[in-house]
């Protein structure tokens, strides 16, 4: 500071000012305590140490990994390993028990449902919906319209070996012929049998269509798998046509398409992809969705 100049001093506090003034109020020059500065330097030092020990700087084809070799991926892997080790202990009971035994033991059941819920969300929800509610072509697991059976053993079998998944020898298999495409039935006959099928579920037949003819066509072509009464047979996984629930829709249009081209959808065999405990918990979880037998 120029020694010849006078220094502005606030008359109340006796402190020097910075010379900044707003509406007559001058800013006092109060130096920050020195330790504040040291704290600032300490943070700089901290960041330098951080750069050295942790991953920090990006490069062209990678980044500096840091001396400690820490990585988020590694942390996750360690966490996953830790949780699996923990699960191995808590889920030891699930390993040896059958699905029925699990369902009978409240503690095991609770454990299995928690495990099954997570696995269902990962592996089943994409087709069957987050709560098993299904969709067109995908079975609604919350109602009683089981095609292959709703007992623990049935569900376990379906989940393990899948449906029409021919990578698995024990997969559930059956095939409905494409009655129209293969030329077994004429379009008019299909129209008639569809109208008859609708009456089984107490739905209105198409106007002006000969339902009696449809009944005969049904007896000749469909009853062998779907039963004389149309209630379906689980050994074939054939649909119950009397309950109003049609996997691919019960409209005339939907049914005509089903009879003409057949559906024969598939479900993967999860036995090859998931561990036995997870499969069991999935069976328990699906059974617990409200319609288990």
């Amino acid at each position: 500071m120029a020694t010849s100049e006078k220094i502005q001093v606030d008359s109340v506090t006796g402190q020097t000012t910075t010379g900044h003034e707003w509406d007559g109020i001058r800013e006092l020059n109060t130096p920050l305590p020195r330790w504040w500065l040291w704290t600032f330097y300490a943070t700089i030092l901290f960041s330098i140490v951080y750069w050295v020990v942790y991953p920090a700087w990006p490069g062209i084809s990678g980044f500096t990994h840091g001396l400690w070799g820490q990585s988020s991926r590694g942390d996750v892997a360690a966490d996953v390993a830790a949780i699996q080790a923990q699960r191995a202990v808590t889920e030891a009971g699930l390993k040896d028990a059958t699905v029925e035994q699990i369902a009978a033991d409240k503690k095991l059941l609770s454990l299995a449902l928690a495990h099954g819920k997570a696995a269902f969300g990962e592996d089943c929800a994409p087709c069957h919906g987050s709560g098993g509610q299904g969709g067109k072509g995908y079975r609604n697991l919350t109602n009683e319209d089981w095609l292959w059976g709703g007992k623990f053993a049935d569900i376990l079998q379906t989940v393990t070996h899948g449906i029409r998944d021919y990578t698995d020898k024990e997969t559930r298999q059956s095939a409905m012929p494409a009655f129209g495409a293969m030329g077994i039935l004429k379009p008019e006959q299909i129209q008639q049998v569809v109208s008859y099928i609708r009456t089984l579920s107490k739905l209105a037949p198409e106007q002006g269509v000969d339902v009696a003819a449809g009944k005969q066509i049904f007896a000749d072509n469909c009853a062998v798998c779907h039963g004389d009464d149309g209630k379906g047979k689980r050994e074939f996984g054939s649909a119950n046509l009397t309950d109003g629930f049609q996997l691919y829709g019960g409209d005339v249009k939907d049914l005509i398409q089903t009879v003409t081209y057949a559906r024969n959808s598939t479900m993967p065999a999860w036995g090859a992809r998931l561990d036995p405990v997870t499969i069991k918990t999935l069976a328990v979880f699906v059974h617990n969705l409200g319609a288990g037998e």
Partner: protein
Amino acid sequence: MSAAEKIDNAGGPEVYDEGPLYASAAKVYPQKVSGTYRRLKWAILIVCLGLYYILPFVRWDRGPNEPHQSILIDLPHSRFYWFFIEIWPQEVYYFTGILILAALSLFLSNALFGRVWCGYFCIQTVWTDLFLWVERLIEGDRRDRIKLDAAPWSAAKVGKRIAKHGLWLLIAFGTGGAFVLYFADAPTLVAQLFTLKAPLAAYAWIGILGFTTYYLAGHMREQVCVYMCPWPRIQAALTDAEALNVTYRRDRGEPRMSVKEAARARAADKPAGDCVDCAQCVAVCPVGVDIRKGSQLGCIQCGLCIDACDTVMAKIHRPTRLIAYDTDENLKRRARGEKAVYRLVRPRTILYVVVIGVVGSLMLYKLSTRQHIGLSVLHVRAPMYTLAHDGMVRNGYTVRFANKWSEPREFALSIAGPAGATVKSEEADALPDGRLKVRLDPDATLEAEIYVTAPVAAASAGGAPITMTATDLTNGESATVADHFFGP
């Protein structure tokens, strides 16, 4: 820069100080003092620290399935225990209530006695006091410490420094050590700590809190109050003209003069102040402020300057309490020749007391009527409903029961609402009367999917009302939740 160089050049040329942006904090050497407020501060310090160290070891019987520690923050099990109170995570509103009470109590104490919290109860004050006591014990009083700091390094100085910092570190890590005892079974953890078997987190926290205690109470001291703590700033907004603050009675003290000068002035019937400008009030101040400049940011209202001034006043045979808990209003009143008035009961303090009473009563009511049974119901949304065979519709509900007893309990779940409704669950047992029975572990919750089936006519797309009631089969205590039953 000395005072002589400072010139008030208001209206003069625009010049400004290009002085340093940073300056070392002037070290404060608080002098030993004795008197009423010092004794009070010691008493509070002993009680506070005593409670802090002893409480984790106090046992409290809660039955066979729960911890026996009077105060325990059980993080792994998400429980907080405080003697007869046990709080679950979802009851965290009790903490909100405690925080509101704490804030209001602080406001009230502030309206009554200014920053009495800062001066007597704040952990920074209590630990700084303790650290100063250690410093005084080893290095002597104010003058000795100033001399020691200025003295060149010698064996004696090194010895004193080692002793002081050693004791400080011992207290600091003891502080951190006591803190972690609130998070685990104290006797077990103490044994683990000394046999190096304690969890890493325990050592880490002892390290962190030990370091902060050592650094903040030993080295930072008043800098914490002046620069780090927000409370002095909030205080400025909360204090008022009637709050009792440590006040230098300017009307009595000024003009300052020596005892002899004052005697002469009084003889000549001229104004004579009681303040002899001995600066004892400044010497004992733990923050290093001059209270005679009036209420200020740095002052923590600890009252030690009152003790120091009283000692001097007693020596020179003048009335004590030249510095006292007083108000600026009273200074003005006395200047006008009126009597001093102390108005601790005024609308503001009454309001605080009333609000504290209301919040406190609410919390007490909630606590005394706290249920030991809990029920929460979440309607399954995917699907909202399922059409079952034979004209029935089924809704799923995720139900969570809570048993807050320290023993296993059996609950029964009943439903009411849709006509002809039945309830089933694979996770519960069916009772003959159609209710569901679940068995809960002590102090635990249980989640179950339950399914309610009713004729389609009993449901509606907008949701027909349904209530679920969980009843404790031991004592009949119940909890009811209302929900909806959906259909096509």
